[in-house]
């Protein structure tokens, strides 16, 4: 409207100012990108904007949560009863398993005490609800409804009933972002439960596949092997199931075997997950690997480089 009656010199000046402003903003964006990519010093800015976006997330999530609430409140008596029965059975089963577990834990503690080894770390978990899953197909990310107010920290492990889901990458005050183990940028240290063979499981960008790129052709691994977190790198507590080996292809002329695994956790179906706090440890390793030493206390006895794996990375992207 205004542009219509402005004269041409005025317009030329305006367009020059526009170009200048764009160049400034472009330079600023590139500076932000470099700083953010090198080392994440922009957490406070992100947190501030994240807090502004939080109400929008709640509104966007409202239809889904209302639907869930409606489905729950209008469930028939039969459905509720059958679900109740199922849960009852499950509870009995898990209780039976837990009894054995308590005995085993006691025995394990006794044996460890006899060996004078360090006490096993105890993990505390807390349930968090997923608010949204990434809107970006190249990043497997989710947002949970717990933030730094509840003690969530960067690099914290997220698990579900079946196995490891991912880790927290960005802590907000009321909500946090997490990276799934299937993200192409995510790698976590695992070991084969059967024989303790240690390696790295890397995300592929598909929800139902992980890659194990650093296993030599003669490594002792076969389809059906359970992979559990090894606890190396410090981000994930040891012993949680990660994936089950799916295919092992050994090509004689290649140095590494082509091994892929299926994640145990239902990565694209979870609605709730658990956050794990490792207790009895005084350090928490953040995700970014720029300014943190590999390990400071409990893990330092374990060497990181393994004799049977050629290449060891670090947890997290």
């Amino acid at each position, binding site marked *: *409207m205004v542009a219509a009656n402005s004269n041409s010199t005025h317009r030329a000046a305006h367009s020059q100012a526009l170009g200048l402003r764009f160049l400034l903003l472009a330079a600023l964006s590139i500076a932000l990108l470099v700083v953010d990519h090198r080392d994440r010093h922009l957490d406070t800015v992100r947190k501030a904007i994240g807090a502004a976006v939080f109400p929008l997330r709640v509104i966007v*999530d409202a239809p889904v949560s209302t639907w869930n609430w409606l489905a729950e409140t209008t469930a028939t008596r039969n459905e509720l009863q059958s679900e109740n029965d199922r849960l009852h059975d499950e509870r009995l089963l898990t209780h039976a398993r837990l009894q054995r577990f308590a005995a085993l834990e006691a025995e394990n503690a006794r044996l460890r005490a006899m060996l004078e080894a360090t006490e096993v770390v105890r993990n505390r978990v807390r349930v968090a609800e997923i608010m949204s899953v*990434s*809107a970006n197909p*190249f*990043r497997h990310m989710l947002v949970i409804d717990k933030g730094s107010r509840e003690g969530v920290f960067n690099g914290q492990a997220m698990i579900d009933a079946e196995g490891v889901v991912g880790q927290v990458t960005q802590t907000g005050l009321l909500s946090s972002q997490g990276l799934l183990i299937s993200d192409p*940028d995510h790698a976590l240290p695992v070991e084969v439960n059967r024989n303790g063979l240690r390696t790295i499981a890397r995300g592929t960008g598909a929800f139902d596949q992980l890659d194990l790129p650093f296993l030599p052709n003669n490594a002792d691994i076969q389809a059906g092997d359970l992979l559990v977190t090894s606890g190396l790198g410090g981000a994930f507590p040891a012993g949680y199931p990660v994936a089950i080996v799916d295919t092992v292809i050994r090509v004689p002329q290649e140095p590494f075997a082509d091994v892929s695994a299926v994640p145990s956790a239902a990565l694209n179906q979870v609605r709730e997950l658990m956050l794990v706090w490792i207790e009895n440890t005084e350090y928490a390793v953040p995700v970014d690997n720029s300014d943190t030493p590999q390990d400071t206390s409990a893990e330092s006895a374990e060497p990181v480089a393994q004799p049977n794996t050629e290449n060891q990375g670090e947890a997290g992207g």
Partner: protein
Amino acid sequence: MASERAARRMPVILCIVAALMLTMAPLPDWADSFRPNWVVITMIYWAMLLPRTYSVGTAWVVGLVLDVAQGTLFGQHALALALVVYITVKFHLQIRVFPISQMTATIFAMLALYQFVLFWINGVAGINSPAVAYWGPVLTSTVFWPFVSAIFGNIRYRVHSRS
């Protein structure tokens, strides 16, 4: 005076917020890679019509919010959105009078440029993904453009006839 200006800006701000919400809304897996770039087409429309009020600065700030909402590198969407809006403002007098077919083609080109900037920054940062995956939003956004611009035109008409 100030409150009148605020009242005139409110509908546009609501449009941008609605576009942000549509970007964050949950979608099934197969549809996710075809989610239109709602924020981009919204910003292009309002920058084209009111270039004095909604220019590169607004686009940059909205882009930063988009970066936080999507968890991408900080400044990625900001740079891409500022570039696209810069081109829009630069040529707004021409684009405004284009017939709908030519305008849609222009929008297609600008969305392709936007996605290319994202692709390029991802590539430099080492986030690799197949280039084909970037075309989905370009196509759907172009398809949605005539409808979105009709809705925005309606909103604009109402706001102006009221004041």
